[in-house]
Each structure stands twice: as C-alpha cells, then as structure tokens.
C-alpha cells in the first residue's frame, strides 16, 4: 500500500493536462449550447412571466375602471332617485296647498252664498210677516190702510223689532 503514496508526478501532470483540455473541449462543445439553451428558456420564462404580470395588471386596471363606473352609475341613480323623491314631495305639497286653497275658497263662497240666501229668506219672511200683519190689522180695523201708511207703520214696527232684538242680545 506504500506504493499508493509513492510520488507520481507524471500522473499529476497528466491529470492537469487532461482536465484543462477537458475544460476547453466541454466549454466549446457542451457548455456553450447547453447554457445558451438554459438562458433562452429562462429568458422565455421571464418574458412569459412578465407578459402574464402585465396582463394581470391590465385586468386589474379594467376591473378598477369598471368598479369606478359602477360606483358612478350607482351614485347617479341614487341622485336621480333623491331628485325624483324631492320633486314628488314638492308636487305633493303644491297639490295639497292648492287643494287646501280650493277648499277654503269653496268654503268661503258657500258661507257667502248661505249668508246671502239667509238674508234673502229673512227679507222674504219679513215681507210675508208684514203682509200678514197688515192683513190682520185691516181685518181688525175693518178698514184699509193705504200703502204709504202701511210702509210707515211697518218700518216703525221693524225698527222696534230690531231694537228689541239688539236689547235682547245684549
């Protein structure tokens, strides 16, 4: 076994020469094409990855745009709804005010009509009562009273009646 450790410089030199030749040969014939293929594949993968990342960024951008558009549409519809509600409220208030005004006008007119009708009826009743009173007085007095006297008497009568009515209401 001592021979194993016996110096063999020739073997060492052969090893160095063989190894350095192998470096040159493999560099020229094997590593060049192999590493070139590896580099090309890595470059292709890198390009694919960058393309995929770009596409993803584009998709995200489009999604954000759509979300922004959707938010705008929602806001617009919300605004339109709010405006429609406001208009409805205003229209309702307006119609209500008009209806109230109409009702008040009808009420006022009706009251005026009623008052006029009442006054007319009261006037007619007075005339009737006066005529009946005159007829009754003529019958009592067996004589007719001329129209002038009759008017004078009746006016005096109604005047007294008004006075008595006011005194009674006070």
């Amino acid at each position: 076994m001592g021979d194993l450790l016996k110096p063999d410089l020739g073997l060492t030199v052969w090893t160095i020469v063989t190894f350095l030749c192998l470096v040159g040969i493999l560099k020229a014939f094997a590593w060049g094409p192999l590493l070139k293929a590896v580099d090309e594949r890595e470059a292709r993968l890198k390009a694919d990855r960058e393309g995929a990342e770009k596409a993803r960024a584009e998709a995200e951008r489009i999604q954000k745009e759509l979300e922004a558009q959707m938010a705008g549409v929602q806001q617009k519809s919300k605004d339109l709804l709010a405006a429609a509600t406001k208009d409805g409220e205003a229209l309702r208030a307006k119609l209500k005010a008009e209806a109230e005004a109409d009702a008040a006008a009808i009420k006022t007119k009706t009251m005026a009509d009623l008052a006029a009708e009442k006054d007319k009826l009261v006037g007619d009743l007075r005339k009737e009562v006066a005529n009946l009173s005159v007829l009754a007085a003529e019958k009592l007095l067996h004589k007719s009273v001329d129209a002038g006297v009759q008017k004078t008497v009746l006016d005096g009568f109604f005047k007294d009646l008004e006075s008595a009515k006011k005194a009674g209401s006070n």
Partner: protein
Amino acid sequence: MNFESILAHHLVDHKTSHKVVATVAGLPVDMGLSPLIRTMWIACGVAIVFLTFAARSQSSLARVMRSMFEPLALFVRDEILEPIFGHHAGHYLPYFLTLFFFILTCNLLGLVPTMSGVTANPWVTAGMATCTFGLIQYAGVKEQGLASYVVHIVPGGVPLILWPLLFVIEVFGMFAKCISLCIRLFANMLAGHVVSLAFLCMIFIFAEMGKAIGAGMIVPSVGLALFIYTMDVLVSFLQAYIFTFLTALFVGGAVHPH
C-alpha cells in the same frame, strides 16, 4: 491470504510504459501511460460524448439526457457559484461545471468493474488541487490586480509588525486548503474501495478456517459490499459537490477578499 497485497493490486497504479521527461526536486516526472490514465481518458471521453450529445442533439434521447444534466448544471450555477461569485459566476461557470462532471464521471467510472478508481489515487487529486490552486491565483490577480491581491492575502486590520508572520501563515493556509481538497477526495473514494474489498476478503479469510464458514460468509459479505457500493454511488455525487463547492469557496475568497 495477504489483504494488503490484494488492496495494492487493485488500488495502486502500475505504469505500462515509462517516459521520464523531467526531474523535479529529485523526483522523476514519468509521463508513461498506465491503466489509471487510460481510465481517466475514458472518463473524459464519456463526459465529452454524453454532454455534447445532450447539449447539441435534438433527438428525444438527447432531451431526456439534457433533462438529467441541466438540473445538475443549474445546481452548480445557482447553488454553488452565484452565492459566491454573484455576477462573475458566468465567467467561471464552464470551469466549475467541468470540474463537477469530471470528478463525478471519474468517481462513478471507478465503481465499474475492470476500471481503475481514478479519484482514489492521491496524485490524481493532487493534480485537481493544483488546478484549484492555479485558479485561486488567476482569479485573485484578475479580479483585484497583482499588488492588491498580494496585500489582501493577509486580512485587513492586522498590526504591521505581525503582517509578515501572518502573510507566511496565510500562504501556508492556501496550500493547506488545496492539500485538504486533495486528501479529502482521495481518502473518501479510497475508503469505499477498501471497505468493499475488506468485506469481500472476509469470505476468503473465513474460508481458511473452514470452507463451510467461508460459504456462510458469502451472503453477508456480498450484501455488505453491495451496501458500501451503493453508498459509494452517493459518495461519488457528494464528493464531486464538495470538491466543487470548496474550490468555489476558496476562489471566491480570493476574488472577494472582504
């Protein structure tokens, strides 16, 4: 039986021809061929053929092979070199990929019957460590410049009086790192072969006590040897990774002194 002679027969390289081209420090540089050198060349041929075919061919078989080699190459690039060298990784990548696949092929080829365990020889791993040492110097000088590299061999903040001492220590440390690389790979790969042979020799050792005992040892011995052999496959990958990683670490230390 002589276990040591069996080990020596299987693990020691024997020159089949001799050609001394020089003498270094009294030691001859014999460039004669040996089975181990031929196995190393076969490993190189296998690596060249398989890797070139996988890299260049468009056939389905090449695609399958490429899908096997690419993860290993990417592992060397992404897990070993890039954390250490950063953007310089591409410059050193061919060297480290070759280093990884050369050691891996030699390790695996050493497990094939009739082939020699190339990386189980210290003088082969010494050659690999010498390449690492050379790469450390080349990378250090290339990235920092000669003067800066020499100055930064010693860590910053050292008192001036200690600088020469630390310089010597650091230079020795540099050699020690490479020697440790050499011994680690050789010892790990040798250990697998020694243990496998030891388990197989147990059959014959016990057979000398009695043939029945020796026959009874066949199944456990072969089973254990196969287990170690399987472990050796794992160790082949592991040692190729460790040698490549540590080389990258040492070279990275020279490239980035801080």
